[in-house]
Each structure stands twice: as C-alpha cells, then as structure tokens.
C-alpha cells in the first residue's frame, strides 16, 4: 500500500485543522481533515507549505503520527525556537484553520503488518513520531508481531505520547516500552536515566538471531549511535532503517 500510495502525482491539498492537541510544552499534534487523502503507511511523512500574504512560501516535511484512518491525518510537531514553520504550526494554527499539504511521501521507512517483525523501535525525542504511527497500527490489529520501543527523552515532561504509550503497552498485544530520561528524572523513576549506550541497547534489543527489523528515528548523533550499536550486536545492516533530523529543521 505504501507503494501504491506514492505512485500518483502528489498534489497539494487544503486540509482543515480539526484540533490542536498539546503533547508536551514544546510539542503539539495537529489533527487534520484532508479531502481525498489517498491513505498512508506508518512511517511516511508529508510536506507542508505555508504562504504569506505577499506570496512568500516555506515548505517543510513532517512525519505522520496517526495510523491510517480515512481522511483524518495527524502530524506531531516540535516547536524549534529558531524555526520558521514549526512555531507557526505549534503556536499560531488553531482549529478551523486551513493548511496546505501533500503526501504521503517515502516508501522505505515504512512498516505495515505484512512487513512482520519482531520490531525494534528506537526513538530520540520527537523522532518517536513515525514510530508512534507504527505502534498505533500494531495496537489496532491482532498481528502477532512483537515490538519493543526504546525511547529517549530529556525529561519526564518531554515524553511525547506518554499516557497513550502506557495504555498501548498495557493492552497485552506484544508491545513493550522502555524509557530513558537523559537530563532529569522524577522521584522514584524506574526507567533508564542516561544516554543510550551499549548496555542499554543489549538489555532492550531483541537478540540478533531472531532477525529483528529495526527502525531508528531521532537527531543525527542519536541515530548514528543507535545504528552503530545494533550493527555491533549483530543486526543485519539491511534490516536497520534510519530516519534523521538534522541540526536544522523548521
């Protein structure tokens, strides 16, 4: 379906913002109603285009957070203080506004039930967004695919989707979530409390002989580190898929 969804020409569509949902102090989800949305697969992204009154335009790409659901598409956006587009999406946009977008984009960093597992999802910060779409697909259907999510955030309040992840992990559908908080931790925190390292990866990752499929998304240095650790643990390079956020963004 991912392939079919990107086959045609990607036309710009006017979506309507249904709801703006604050997730953390710096991150919000935008629930969009997109007329004639062709459908998407977990892991794909879309392009947003903003147009000022004088015709000036700016485009950025955002990962889709939602599982396929008709014409409803949710993107989850982190506000970058020096960004041009994200402060508009997170600070200015409100329910009832329109937003121009096209997608879905990308046929590689995608996961569908038929892709199988076991799945290892490794997220740094807002890199959790495309992996959340995978988690939501996993939770929605009885696939029998086992998944582990290792999710690194700076602090407890920076954890995006925290309550939903707790709930999905509690469904007993084979999802396990492991958090690490790198800068500060609440009292009685039971998760990891340091940056991702070899020992943590070894404890969380499926053994390589189960031929797991890994998806890693986050800042460049985080992704480089996580992918390197998995190669050391014996994961096949071709079964480690990465997506990175550069030092710039929007």
């Amino acid at each position, binding site marked *: 379906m991912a392939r079919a969804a990107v086959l045609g020409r990607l036309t710009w569509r006017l979506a309507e913002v249904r709801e703006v949902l604050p997730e953390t102090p710096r991150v919000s989800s935008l629930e969009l109603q997109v007329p004639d949305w062709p459908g998407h697969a977990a892991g794909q992204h879309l392009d947003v285009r903003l*147009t000022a009154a004088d015709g000036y335009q700016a485009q950025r790409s955002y990962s889709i957070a939602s599982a396929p659901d008709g014409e409803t598409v949710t993107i989850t956006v982190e506000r970058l203080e020096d960004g*041009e587009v994200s402060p508009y999406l997170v600070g200015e946009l409100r329910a009832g506004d329109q937003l121009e977008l096209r997608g879905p984009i990308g*046929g590689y960093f995608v996961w569908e039930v038929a892709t199988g597992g076991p799945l290892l999802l490794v997220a740094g910060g807002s890199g959790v967004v495309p992996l959340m779409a995978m988690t939501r697909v996993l939770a929605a259907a009885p696939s029998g695919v086992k998944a582990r999510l290792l999710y690194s955030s700076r602090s407890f309040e920076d954890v995006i989707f925290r309550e939903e992840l707790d709930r999905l992990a509690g469904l007993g559908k084979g999802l396990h979530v492991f958090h690490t908080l790198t800068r500060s931790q609440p009292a009685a925190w039971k998760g990891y409390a340091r940056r991702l390292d070899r020992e943590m990866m070894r404890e969380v990752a499926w053994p390589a002989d189960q031929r797991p499929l890994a998806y890693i998304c986050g800042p460049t240095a985080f992704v480089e580190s996580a992918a390197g650790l998995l190669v050391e643990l014996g994961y096949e*390079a071709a079964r480690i898929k990465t997506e990175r956020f*550069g030092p710039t963004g929007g």
Partner: protein
Amino acid sequence: MAFISRGFKGRRREGAPSGRIPPGQYLADGFPVLSAGPTPRTKLSDWTFSIVGEVDTPKRWTWEEFKQLPSQEVTVDIHCVTKWSKLDTLWRGVAIDTLLEGVESAAEYAAAFSDGGYTTNVPLEDLTGGKGWIAYEYDGQPLAPEHGGPARLLVPHLYFWKSAKWVRGLSLELEDKPGFWESNGYHLYGDPWREQRYWGD
C-alpha cells in the same frame, strides 16, 4: 485567489542571495545528514573505485591509486530534497571526466553504487562536462563517514540524494533504471530548479 496561510509572515533570510535558492528550499546553517541505514565503515585498504557495466574494459583504482589521480577543488551550492540548501560548499575530488578518459561505451546513463547497497541513477551527460566528481574532501578535511566518506559522488546541480555517499563505482547503463530513492517515491531525475522531488513532479 491562491491560498494564504492565516497569520503566516515567514522569515525571509537576510543575506540569502536571490537566484541561488531553488523553489521550496531554505538556507541551512549546518550540514544535515540524511541516510537510510547504518553508516558503513570500509577500511581504506579494502576500498576500490570501479567503472563497470557497458564498457569494453572495466577500470578499477585502489585508494592509493585514486588519490594519485588529478583532483579539482570545487565550490558549489547543494540542495537536499528535505528542503535545505547550503551555499558555497568546498570539495576536493576527481572529475568523472577524468575517470572516464579512454572509456569506450554506448551507455547514456550511470548507476552509482555504494557500500551498504545504495544505488542512484544519473544520466551520463549530467556527470560529464565538468558536472560531476568523486569527492573525498569537504572543507579541506577528509570527508567524514556520516557525510559519505571516504568518498561520495558529487552532482551538485541535482537534488543531493543523487550525490551517493560511500560510493564505490559507476555502472554504465543503456537504460535509466531507478535507484534506491528513485524506487521509493523520489523523482527519477531530480532537478531542484524544476522542483522534481517526487514521482510525477
């Protein structure tokens, strides 16, 4: 009337030279990284560069031999399909023209192939005539692995995914066969000035 984003003013960048930023792009400060999998680590003693495919006699260089070839320093603007552009980037590498000297071929296309299995397709005329290089230095330093070192293809007039990282050779082809990103939704040719990002653009 065209759509206007309510309340959006935009932040036109001071000092962004007009005529150098293609449509839909913005000027980046850093050097973002985009790749689909782990960064390959190939020892220089194991590294070779090959010209294969539709050629009478394939060519091959070791790292030592490759570094002996005449090189050029080039300053170019680069444009990534993920929207960032970077101006006046400084590279050193060997011109594809130099590598193809004396090569007899009816091919009109090239498939660049890389460590890690990445491939990308480029018409041969976009690599020759001073338009393409195999670059091994960036900004006066050996090219870092996350940016494609030890060597990457440099085709700056096309979107930067065409500038294959960790490149190990060119296969000359009679037909234009889609490479990795070109099979995954991205444009077969990738001209940033015509905004050829995705299939159908």
